[in-house]
C-alpha cells in the first residue's frame, strides 16, 4: 500500500481538497501510517495558500470506517493504549488548530475515528445515501471514542444526543444526523462534492474564512432545563441507570465513556479533557472484554462470507426468489414473514383457512409494529404484505424455487407431507425442513431428490434471531447448501452449515446445560438463584429455567430424550424432567412453569419445589463457580466431540458464531470455545473428572477434549 497515494492534497483557486482513497483496501481506515500521512498534509496545508479545505472520500460506500481494528486489538496495556490515542488526538487537534475552515463532505460510513475526525472540522455536509451512516460505535468493541469523540460530540450535538449515540454505539443515517445537528446539511450523493465546493467558494467570496466554533445551544424549555447544571445531573444519573441495567456490569466501556463525558463536559481546557479521555481509553483498551468483543467482531464478519466449500466446490448457488411455507404456526408464519420482508414471493399453506389467517395475522402484526416504530413506510408494508399470500391447497407450489416445512415434529407426518408436496413442485426445487430435532437424512428419503433436501433450522422468534443452522443431510448436494446459505444472507441471517446429527449444533450444546441445571435443582439449589448466576455472573441473556419455560417444558423433555437415546449416559436425564411434566407444567404457553407467568415472567412458582418433592431450597448449597462450571463445561465437553471427532461443523469459529447468534452466549466472553481457551483444556478436563467421580459419568471428559488437554492445545488458536 502506498501511503503517499492513499491520501492526496490538491489546491485550486484557494480551495484545498484532501481525498481519502486507501490503495489496496476496500475501506478507508485510520491506521498509524495513514494518520501520519494525514498529519503531514495538514502541516502542508497550514503552510500553503488555501483559504478553505474540503475532506472527501473516493470510496463508493465508505467515508472513513474508523481506526484500524487490528491495531486496537494489538494494544496490550494501558501505556500503549494511551500513547496510541494521544498521538491520534494530536493529529485531530491539528484540524481544529488550522487557520482555515475545513468542510467534511461525507458520503458512506463515517464511524469511530472517522466521525471523530469530522467532529473536529468546521462544517459537515452529508449525502443522503443509504450507505451514509455517522456515529461512534466504539463501545461495541469494548473501548470508548479516544480521538476526542467523547469530548467533541457533546459540544456539537448536546449532552443528551451525544450520550444516546456514544453509550449505545449508534450509527445514524444522514437524516437523523441532521436532526441532532451532527451535520449541517444533507444533499443527494451526486451533488455532494459540488455543494461542498460551492459552499467553500461562498465562504471565500463572503470573506467568512475564519474558523467556526459550532457549539450546541439548546432550543426550547425542556432542552434548556436539561442543559442546566441540575438538568445535567439528572441526565447523567438516568444514563448511568440505563447502562448498568443493560450491561449488568459485564461491559465496562459504556460506563467508562459516561465517566469521561461527565468529567469533561463543559471543560474549557482541551488538553486536560483529552487527557481524561485518553486515560479512560487506557482503562478499557487492554481489557479482556474488549479483546473478546473485537474477536467476536471478526468472527461475525467472517461468517458473512460464504463458507469455504462453496468456493472450492465451484458450485453456482441457485437464486431463490420464491418460497412456499408449510405450516402457519409460530415458526411457519415467522419464516414466511421474514422471506416476504426480504422480497421473496411467499405462499403460506396450512390445512384450514383459520390457521392460515392466524399466520397471516402474525406476519402482519410484525410489519404493523415496524410501521409504528417508523422502521418501514406504509408503502413498504403494502409491498411486503403483497409478497405473502396464503392458501389451503397446493396452488402456486408448481412455480416455487423453495419449499420449507414447519409442521408438527413427527417423522411420519413429515415424510407423508414431504412426498405429497414434492409431487406438486418443480423438479429442481429445493425442499427444506425447519425441524429442530429430527434427522434430515432420514426425512430426505421421503423426497424424490434427496440431494435437494436440506435442513433450515430457524430460531424463535424468527424475525429477531440472527442464526440459521443449515443442515446438510447425508445426500444433500453442495449446490443446495450453497443456495440456502446465500438465501440466509439475503434474509439478513447468518447461516452456519452443520452436518446432520442429533440436535444439530446449538440445541446439542444447550441441552447438557439445561439438563445439568435440573440436577442442581434436585440437589437443593433455588431456581432463581441458578438463573441469576447464569445471567448476572456469567452473562447469558436468559437463565436456564427461564429458557425452559420459554421453549416449553414438554419440548425440552422430548428433546432430552432424543439426546439420551443418541448419546447415552453423557446425556443423562435428571428424574425431575419427567416429574415436572407430570405436574402439568408446560412453561410460558400454559402460564405454568418454573415461573409464574402472566403474559410476562413473574416470580418463581414456589409450589414447584413441593410438587417435585423437593424441600425448600437452601440458598448456598453450591458455589457460583461450580454452578456455571457444571453447565458451561458440559457444553465445552460436548463441543469438543462435535468439532473434533464428529466434525459436524468445519471450525471452532462456527461453534462460537452459532452459540453467540443462536443461544445468546455472552459476546464479551468471545464465544464458547474462546472462553474454554481462556480457562484452558487442562483445567477443564481436571474439573470434569472430579465432577465425574462425584456426580456421575455425564461429566466424563470426551476423547477429543482429553487429547487437547494432553497436548495442551486450544480450540481457537
Amino acid at each position: 500500500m502506498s501511503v503517499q497515494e492513499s491520501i492526496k492534497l490538491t489546491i485550486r483557486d484557494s480551495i484545498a481538497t484532501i481525498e481519502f482513497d486507501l490503495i489496496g483496501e476496500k475501506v478507508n481506515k485510520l491506521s498509524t501510517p495513514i494518520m501520519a500521512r494525514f498529519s503531514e498534509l495538514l502541516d502542508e496545508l497550514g503552510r500553503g495558500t488555501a483559504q478553505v479545505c474540503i475532506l472527501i472520500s473516493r470510496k463508493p460506500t465508505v467515508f472513513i470506517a474508523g481506526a484500524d481494528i487490528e491495531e486496537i486489538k494489538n494494544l496490550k496495556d494501558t501505556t500503549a493504549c494511551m500513547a496510541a490515542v494521544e498521538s491520534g488526538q494530536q493529529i485531530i487537534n491539528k484540524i481544529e488548530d488550522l487557520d482555515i475552515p475545513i468542510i467534511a463532505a461525507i458520503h458512506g460510513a463515517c464511524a469511530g475515528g472517522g466521525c471523530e475526525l469530522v467532529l473536529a472540522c468546521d462544517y459537515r455536509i452529508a449525502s443522503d445515501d443509504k450507505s451514509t451512516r455517522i456515529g461512534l460505535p466504539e463501545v461495541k468493541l469494548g473501548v470508548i471514542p479516544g480521538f476526542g469523540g467523547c469530548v467533541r460530540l457533546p459540544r456539537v450535538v448536546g449532552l443528551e444526543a451525544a450520550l444516546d449515540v456514544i453509550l449505545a454505539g449508534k450509527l445514524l443515517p444522514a437524516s437523523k444526523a441532521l436532526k441532532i445537528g451532527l451535520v449541517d446539511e444533507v444533499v443527494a450523493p451526486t451533488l455532494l462534492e459540488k455543494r461542498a465546493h460551492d459552499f467553500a467558494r461562498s465562504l471565500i467570496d463572503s470573506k467568512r474564512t475564519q474558523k467556526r466554533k459550532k457549539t450546541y445551544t439548546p432550543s426550547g424549555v425542556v432542552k434548556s432545563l436539561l442543559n442546566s447544571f441540575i438538568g445535567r445531573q439528572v441526565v447523567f444519573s438516568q444514563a448511568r441507570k440505563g447502562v448498568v441495567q443493560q450491561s449488568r456490569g459485564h461491559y465496562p466501556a459504556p460506563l467508562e465513556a459516561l465517566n469521561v463525558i461527565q468529567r469533561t463536559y463543559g471543560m474549557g481546557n482541551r488538553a486536560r479533557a483529552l487527557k481524561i479521555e485518553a486515560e479512560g481509553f487506557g482503562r478499557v483498551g487492554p481489557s479482556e472484554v474488549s479483546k473478546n468483543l473485537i474477536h467476536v467482531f471478526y468472527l461475525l464478519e467472517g461468517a458473512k462470507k460464504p463458507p469455504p466449500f462453496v468456493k472450492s466446490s465451484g458450485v453456482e448457488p441457485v437464486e431463490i426468489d420464491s418460497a412456499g411455507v408449510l405450516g402457519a404456526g409460530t415458526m411457519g408464519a415467522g419464516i414466511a414473514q421474514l422471506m416476504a420482508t426480504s422480497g421473496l414471493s411467499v405462499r403460506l399453506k396450512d390445512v384450514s383457512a383459520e390457521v392460515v389467517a392466524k399466520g397471516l395475522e402474525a406476519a402482519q402484526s410484525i410489519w404493523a409494529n415496524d410501521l409504528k416504530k417508523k422502521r418501514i413506510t406504509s408503502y413498504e408494508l403494502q409491498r411486503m404484505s403483497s409478497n405473502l399470500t396464503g392458501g389451503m391447497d397446493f396452488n402456486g407450489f408448481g412455480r416455487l424455487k423453495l419449499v420449507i416445512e414447519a409442521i408438527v415434529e413427527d417423522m411420519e407426518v413429515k415424510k407423508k407431507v414431504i412426498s405429497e408436496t414434492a409431487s406438486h413442485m418443480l423438479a429442481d426445487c429445493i425442499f427444506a425442513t425447519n425441524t429442530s430435532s429430527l434427522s434430515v437424512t432420514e426425512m430426505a428419503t421421503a423426497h424424490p431428490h434427496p440431494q435437494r433436501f436440506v435442513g433450515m433450522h430457524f430460531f424463535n422468534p424468527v424475525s429477531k434471531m440472527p442464526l440459521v443452522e443449515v443442515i446438510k443431510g447425508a445426500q444433500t448436494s453442495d449446490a443446495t447448501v450453497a443456495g440456502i446459505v446465500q438465501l440466509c444472507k439475503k434474509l439478513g441471517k447468518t447461516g452456519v452449515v452443520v452436518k446432520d446429527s442429533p440436535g444439530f449444533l446449538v440445541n446439542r450444546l444447550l441441552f447438557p446445560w439445561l439438563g445439568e441445571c435440573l440436577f442442581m435443582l434436585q440437589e437443593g439449589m433455588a431456581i432463581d438463584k441458578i438463573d441469576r448466576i447464569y445471567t448476572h455472573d456469567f452473562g447469558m441473556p436468559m437463565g436456564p429455567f427461564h429458557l425452559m419455560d420459554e421453549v416449553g417444558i414438554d419440548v425440552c423433555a422430548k428433546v432430552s430424550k432424543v439426546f439420551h437415546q443418541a448419546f447415552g449416559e453423557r446425556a443423562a436425564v435428571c428424574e425431575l424432567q419427567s416429574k415436572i411434566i407430570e405436574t402439568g407444567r408446560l412453561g410460558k404457553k400454559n402460564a405454568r412453569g418454573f415461573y409464574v407467568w402472566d403474559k410476562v415472567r413473574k416470580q418463581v412458582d414456589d409450589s414447584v419445589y413441593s410438587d417435585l418433592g423437593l424441600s425448600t431450597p437452601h440458598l448456598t448449597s453450591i458455589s457460583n463457580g461450580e454452578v456455571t462450571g457444571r453447565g458451561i463445561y458440559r457444553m465445552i465437553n460436548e463441543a469438543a466431540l462435535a468439532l473434533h471427532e464428529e466434525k459436524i461443523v468445519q471450525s471452532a469459529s462456527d461453534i462460537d458464531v452459532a452459540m453467540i447468534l443462536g443461544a445468546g452466549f455472552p459476546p464479551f466472553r468471545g464465544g464458547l470455545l474462546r472462553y474454554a481457551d481462556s480457562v484452558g483444556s487442562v483445567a477443564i478436563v481436571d474439573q470434569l473428572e472430579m465432577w465425574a467421580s462425584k456426580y456421575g459419568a455425564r461429566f466424563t471428559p470426551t476423547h477429543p477434549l482429553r487429547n487437547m488437554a494432553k497436548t495442551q492445545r486450544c480450540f481457537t488458536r
Partner: protein
Amino acid sequence: MGDAQRDVVIIEGVRTPFAKSGTALKDIHAAELGAISVRELIAKTNLDIHQIDEVIIGNTANPSDTANIARVIALNSAIPLSVPAFCVHRNCASALEAITSAYERIQSGSSNVLIAGGTENMSQLPLLFTQRFANLFGEFAFAKSLTLKLLALKKLRLSDLKPRISIMEGLRDPFSGLMMGDTAELLAREFNIDRNSQDQFALESHQKAVAAQKSGRLDPEIVPVFVAPRFEKIIQKDIGPREEQSIEALKKMKPYFDRRNGTVTVANSCPITDGAASVLMMSRRKAQDLGHKPLARIVSYAFRGLQPERMGLGPVFATAVALKKAHLPMSAIELVELNEAFASQVLACLKAFASDSFAQKELGLSTKVGEIDPKILNVNGGAIALGHPVGATGTRIVLTLAKEMKRRKIKYGLATLCIGGGQGGAIILENEEN
C-alpha cells in the same frame, strides 16, 4: 377461419367473492381486491410470471390514490417490473373490454400471454367537493396576504360544503340525465313488464345463486379473501344471495326510482357491490408450449351502441353482431350469462331477442335474433343476487360461463351485458375439449 395456433384461449380464471357494498370487503382497496385475484390466478395456474406480456384491468371509479390501477395491481402481484399494465374503461363492461382488448392483442400476434380482469370497490366511492368550493379553496390557499385569505373565505357559503356523492353521479346517465334505474323503468313500460314478473325473476336469481352456493358449484372460481389487518374474517362465499328471499318480501319493497308509478325496486335490481375477477389468456400455440390446458376459446365478440335511455337493451344489439361474426345462430348457444342490472331490463331483452319486429325495426335483421330459453339463462344466479361490481362484472360473467360450460360439456356459450351510457357487449365462447 384463420390459423388455429392464433386461437385466443382462456386458460383459467378466478374471482374474489362478491360482497354487497358496506359489508365484508368494504375496507379493502380496489387495487388490493384486484391484486388478490391476480395473485391467486398466478398461483392457481402456476404461471411463470416472466411469460406475462401485459396486464389489462377494467375499473370504472379510478380511485384517485391509484392512478392506473392496473399497474398497481401488477406490481403488487409480484409480476416483473418490465411487464406493462394499463386500465380500460367501458363503464359496466370494463372487465369485458379488458378481455376483448387482450383478445385483439393475442389474435394479432402482438402478445401471447395476458392477464385480463377487473376490480371495483363501490363502498369506497368518495364524497366530493363542489367545483365552486375547489375554486375557493385554491383562491384561499394561494392568497398572499391575510386580507386576501379573508376575502376568499368570505365568499364561502354553507351550500358550498354540500358534498357531491360520486356513486350517485356515476349511476346517472350524463347524456340523458336519467338514473340507471329510470332507464329500467322505461324498459318495463316499453315492454309491458309488470312488477310481479320482475319480483319473480329476482326471486329466481336468488334461488339459483343459493343452490349454486350450496352445491359448491361456484367454489372453483372463487378465491378466499383474508381480511387484513386483523384477519379475523375469511370471506369465501359471495355476500348477496339470500336463502330467505321470498316473493312476499320482494312485494313489500317500495319502487325506488319512480316512487308513485314505478315497478323497479332495489330488490329487483342488482346491489352495489365490491369485488374483483381476472382471467389468464394465451394464444393456443403459447398455451401448448407452456403446457397450459385451455378452458375455452373466444369465438367472437361485439360492442354496439344505442340510445342511452334504453341502455338495458344493449345485449340484444351486441349479441346480434357477435353471433353474425361467429356465423352461429342463437339456437347454437346452449348457455347464456346475461348480466342482471335490473330484472325489467333482462326481461325486456328476452322479449326483444324473441321479436321479429324488434329485429326488423331496430337491428336491421329480417327475423328475430332468437329466443333464449330461461332454463339456460344465468343458471347459477345473476347480479341481482351475486351483485355487480361495475368494473369487474364483465370478467365474472365470462368466467362463470366458461366454468359452467365445462361442467355441462356444451359447445357454445354467450356472455352479454348492458352498459350505462347506451351500449351493449357480447362475447361467444367455445368449450375446449381436453
